[in-house]
């Protein structure tokens, strides 16, 4: 439409625009930009006043934030994870706490995902018993608070195990008591890295074979036996590497009980030396986080599977695929697109919920920070550090899940 044919009302407005410029204070773009600038300044000013107020208040009660305390010795000693001794600095203690958190979160994420997938499938299985047992599990764990569950697992399960003097001995040798589960420890020898190299080559070969056999299967329609080829490659290179490096790549340290004589003359186990200890605190935290989160992930997986159009499943069955193959090749790949975004939320929840470890004496990053706060008298700095740590952890998990989401998204061409 041209200027000439437009209604007179419109052309009048245009005329004004052509002949005189709009003053700045009435230009909508200037007003909008100006309002935003004013608002931003106001927000910064308010924040500045508030922070300044906090700092003044803290200075008035002699608690000005400093960073000196990070270099001071922590003065206590604990064994969880890498452990810390009293001469280590506060900063090292914080890092050990962080490592402990990551130990719990990483294992928790993997186990919760695996269990959650099985739960989701079991919720839809035609098998009445399995479906109802799973349903009961999901409802119980989804509808009770995690803190209650954690304390239950710690005090009611792992601390109710036999006392150390009556520790249950299992073949292995493995010792189980309410001081934890002690299993044989593997110590890598100096040829271990070399052997690891063989193993990596084995995995690369396995991946290559998987791809090649997959192509073979799709092109010829003959079974490709991908799994067999891949496993054979990994095991083959592992054994080859073992023979080639000329030495055992690791040594096994067996745990052994240390006995002590009571005044009555009885000999009892005092502690277990050597081996790797899984503490009851760690076990309770991981079990609690996994069972709680897997109940939610199970529901997400169920919803994801149900979101796949039923025609897809019928088509797969019509092609002669088994129930397992239908799930693996048709349903799960499509369900994944629906599952990934809410799954990321559950991962974030698990990571943040790990801070409840403080209730069961697990030395995670938050528990250690509380000790640091008490030892140093500084509150703000350790708390900010903890918050930034959790923030970083959550952002990393979010970033990974977003990337996964992007790469699995339906490609529109």
């Amino acid at each position, binding site marked *: 439409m041209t200027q000439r044919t437009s209604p007179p009302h419109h052309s009048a407005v245009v005329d004004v625009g052509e002949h005189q410029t709009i003053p700045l204070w009435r230009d*909508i773009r200037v*007003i909008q930009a100006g*309002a935003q600038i*004013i*608002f931003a300044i*106001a927000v910064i*000013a*308010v924040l500045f*006043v*508030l922070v*300044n*107020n906090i700092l*003044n*208040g803290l200075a*008035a*009660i*002699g*608690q000005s934030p400093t960073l000196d305390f990070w270099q001071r010795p922590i*003065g*206590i*000693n*604990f*064994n969880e994870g890498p452990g810390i001794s*009293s001469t280590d600095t506060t900063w090292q203690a914080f890092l050990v706490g962080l490592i402990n958190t990551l130990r719990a979160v990483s294992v928790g994420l993997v186990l919760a995902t695996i269990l959650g997938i099985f739960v989701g499938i079991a919720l839809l299985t035609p098998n009445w018993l399995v479906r109802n047992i799973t349903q009961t599990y999901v409802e119980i764990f989804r509808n009770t608070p995690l803190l209650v569950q954690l304390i239950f697992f710690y*005090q009611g399960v792992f*601390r*109710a195990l036999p*006392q*150390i003097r009556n520790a249950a001995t299992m073949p292995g040798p493995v010792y189980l008591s*309410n*001081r934890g589960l002690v299993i044989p420890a593997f110590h890598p020898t100096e040829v271990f890295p070399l052997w690891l190299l063989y193993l990596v080559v084995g995995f690369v070969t396995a991946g290559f074979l998987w791809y090649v056999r997959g192509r073979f299967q799709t092109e010829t329609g003959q079974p490709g036996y991908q799994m067999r080829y891949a496993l054979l490659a990994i095991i083959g290179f592992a054994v080859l590497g073992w023979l080639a490096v000329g030495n055992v790549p690791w040594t096994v340290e067996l745990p052994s009980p*240390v006995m*002590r*004589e*009571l*005044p*009555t003359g009885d000999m009892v186990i*005092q*502690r277990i030396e050597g081996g790797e200890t899984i503490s*009851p*605190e760690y076990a309770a935290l991981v079990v609690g986080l996994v069972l709680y989160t897997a109940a939610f992930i199970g529901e997400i997986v169920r919803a994801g599977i149900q979101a796949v159009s039923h025609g897809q499943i019928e088509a797969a069955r019509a092609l002669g695929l088994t129930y397992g193959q239908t799930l693996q090749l048709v349903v799960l790949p499509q369900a994944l697109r629906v599952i990934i975004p809410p799954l990321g939320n559950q991962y974030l929840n698990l990571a943040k919920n790990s801070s409840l470890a*403080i*209730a069961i*004496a697990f*030395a995670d990053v938050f*528990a250690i920070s*509380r*000790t640091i*706060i*008490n*030892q*140093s*008298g*500084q*509150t703000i700095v350790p708390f900010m550090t903890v918050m930034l740590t959790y923030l970083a952890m959550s952002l990393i998990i979010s970033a990974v899940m977003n990337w996964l989401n992007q790469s699995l998204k339906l490609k529109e061409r």
Partner: protein
Amino acid sequence: MLRNRRSLLVLVTALLALSLFSGALVVSGQEQSTLDLVRDRGRLICGVNQELFGFGYLDPETSEITGFDVEFCRAFAVAIFGEASSDTLELSPQTAQTRLPAVATGEVDVLVRNTTWTLSRDTEAGLDFGPTNFYDGQSIMVRAGEGLETWEDLDGATICTTTGTTTEKNITDQMDERGLTYELLQFESTADTNSAFMDGRCDVQTSDRSQLEALRAASPDPAAYYVWPTTFSKEPLGPVYRQNDSQWADVINWTVFGMIQAEELGIDSSNVDDFLRQDGESDDDYIARVGAQVARVLDADLGLGGLLGLNNDFMVEVLRQVGNYGEVYERYFAADGPLPIERGPNELWLNGGLIYAPAWR
């Protein structure tokens, strides 16, 4: 658009004013003495323990917090308001973790919660400490009959302690000095630490001796546990208040000293009326009858309470309603009571102990 802009401006101005105003509030709060603050509020907020039998313990039957430390809270409320009721005294239960920030931020006016006086707390945490009302020391509790009676027996032991206390540092020092191996497990509350010890998660529970004795006494079978008679740290426990508030410090300190002074003078809750001035008795007659020291503590004219900003005779009500130091001690730690603790260092200085009040004149 114009309306939006206007409301935006109003909002910004309001926010600015609010933040400036709150800043002003905090600053003025800093300058006001806690004594005036407490008087304006009409109520003293005293931080206490609610888990430690004998010191500060929430009695499950009466739902009231009672104990040795709580008596001092009551004494402070009586000294300021003349009575300790639910109106004039609020007991605020604090954990080992929350107690020091609660004082530093002014959430509680004074803290009497078996808190050890240490140099770093006195300097770094923004606190000042009042006179020690209980001399304690850290000790060890083990299961009886396990033969864990010396430090060497503890080699390889698992030790449970409560985080947020000085005990975790003390036990570390002791074990490290002797080159002993051990595993330290830290719990959030004394109740958690104790239940872990009772379950056999650890061989040893370590804390202040008084606390261990209290836990042992409250356990289902006290004979099954053994508390070492020795102590290995100085744990002077006393009231804590915010630093640099001299007037408030004086009120707290001299109330405690007054209770000690009264025991020294032989004045207790049952006989305090005998030491008061009778109607029409002149200064000279009164002093001749009870002595100048008693008059300076108890009398409405000759008493020195006014110098603290309190009534001259504030100690009369404190003694009537709470009692002197020895009385309060016997109320909770008597030899025939549920929690017998020998007075030992907590005897008056006259009897060879450490309990001593400066001159009341």
